[in-house]
């Protein structure tokens, strides 16, 4: 999903920078509020960012015979919402743009929009639509899969908008065949991995998940919530 340095015309770079900039600014305000009101969520914020760091560095083979990487953006989206995830994605994408020549500074706005905003937004929508209807572990698996996949769909659309060619629909099909199809097994793998990590978080700190309002009381009734005072 990394659009490479210089591979978007300046007008599109500016367009995505402005859109992403607004969301990232809102995300920064949200983080500030979150950290001052619920300081105990700080470690989970770090875990969500770290998860993106790991997953987006792992380039995996796909059944289409090419390689791509998962995003890790679904976990942050479900825990903290898409705007906060947008801020976390800036850290990851900036690291890759400056040190790895992966993505780029001119295309940072566009890449933040796909991996930090549209993907997480889709995952967050799905999670909230299914919340309370199915177990949160299954829910996060689906949300993470959707967030990963929509990230790549967004990149395909962004590239088509910038380079429509003579037949935009045909062009979109080409980009989708590169990104969206390759991504299917990776998105499934990301969904499963996220479920494993989620179960661990739910087992260890259901109290924080409750406080963030991402799981119901019914899911933790069988677990022992850490005693007050020892929970920080």
């Amino acid at each position: 999903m990394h659009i490479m340095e210089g591979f978007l015309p300046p007008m599109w770079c500016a367009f995505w920078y402005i859109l992403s900039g607004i969301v990232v600014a809102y995300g920064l305000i949200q983080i500030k509020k979150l950290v001052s009101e619920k300081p105990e969520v700080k470690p989970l914020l770090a875990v969500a960012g770290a998860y993106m760091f790991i997953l987006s560095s792992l380039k995996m083979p796909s059944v289409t015979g090419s390689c791509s990487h998962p995003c890790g953006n679904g976990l942050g989206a479900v825990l903290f919402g898409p705007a906060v995830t947008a801020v976390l994605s800036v850290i990851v994408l900036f690291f890759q743009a400056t040190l790895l020549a992966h993505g780029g500074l001119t295309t940072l706005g566009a890449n933040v929009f796909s991996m930090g905003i549209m993907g997480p937004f889709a995952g967050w929508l799905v999670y909230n639509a299914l919340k309370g209807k199915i177990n949160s572990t299954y829910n996060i698996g689906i949300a993470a899969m959707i967030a990963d996949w929509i990230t790549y769909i967004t990149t395909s659309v962004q590239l088509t908008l910038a380079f429509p060619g003579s037949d935009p629909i045909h062009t979109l099909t080409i980009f989708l065949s590169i990104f969206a199809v390759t991504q299917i097994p990776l998105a499934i793998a990301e969904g499963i991995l996220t479920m494993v990590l989620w179960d661990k978080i739910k087992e260890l700190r259901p109290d924080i998940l409750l406080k963030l309002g991402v799981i119901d009381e019914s899911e933790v009734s069988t677990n022992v919530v850490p005693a007050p005072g020892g929970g920080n």
Partner: protein
Amino acid sequence: METKHIIMLGIVVLLMVAPLIIYHGKGEKEGYFGGADDAASDTIEKLDPNYKPWFQPIWEPPSGEIESLLFALQAAIGAIIIGYFIGYYTALKRSNT
């Protein structure tokens, strides 16, 4: 870590190994296992042969070794953070019960 989690991780491994088995013996020279990002850039060049990237990366890893070093570093940073907090919470829970 319950049995179901080990099975789940096993499925992830299978998903990653399957392409290696399907395309066994084929490599980059035959056009396999290349990056999707590069494929997209190639497509742009085909769609609009006159398009010239107007900005170059400010720095590029000078070799594949340096690049893999930085990718491994990126994954390691992430893994340290997750491992630290999962371990911390596990110990905390144990000392509380």
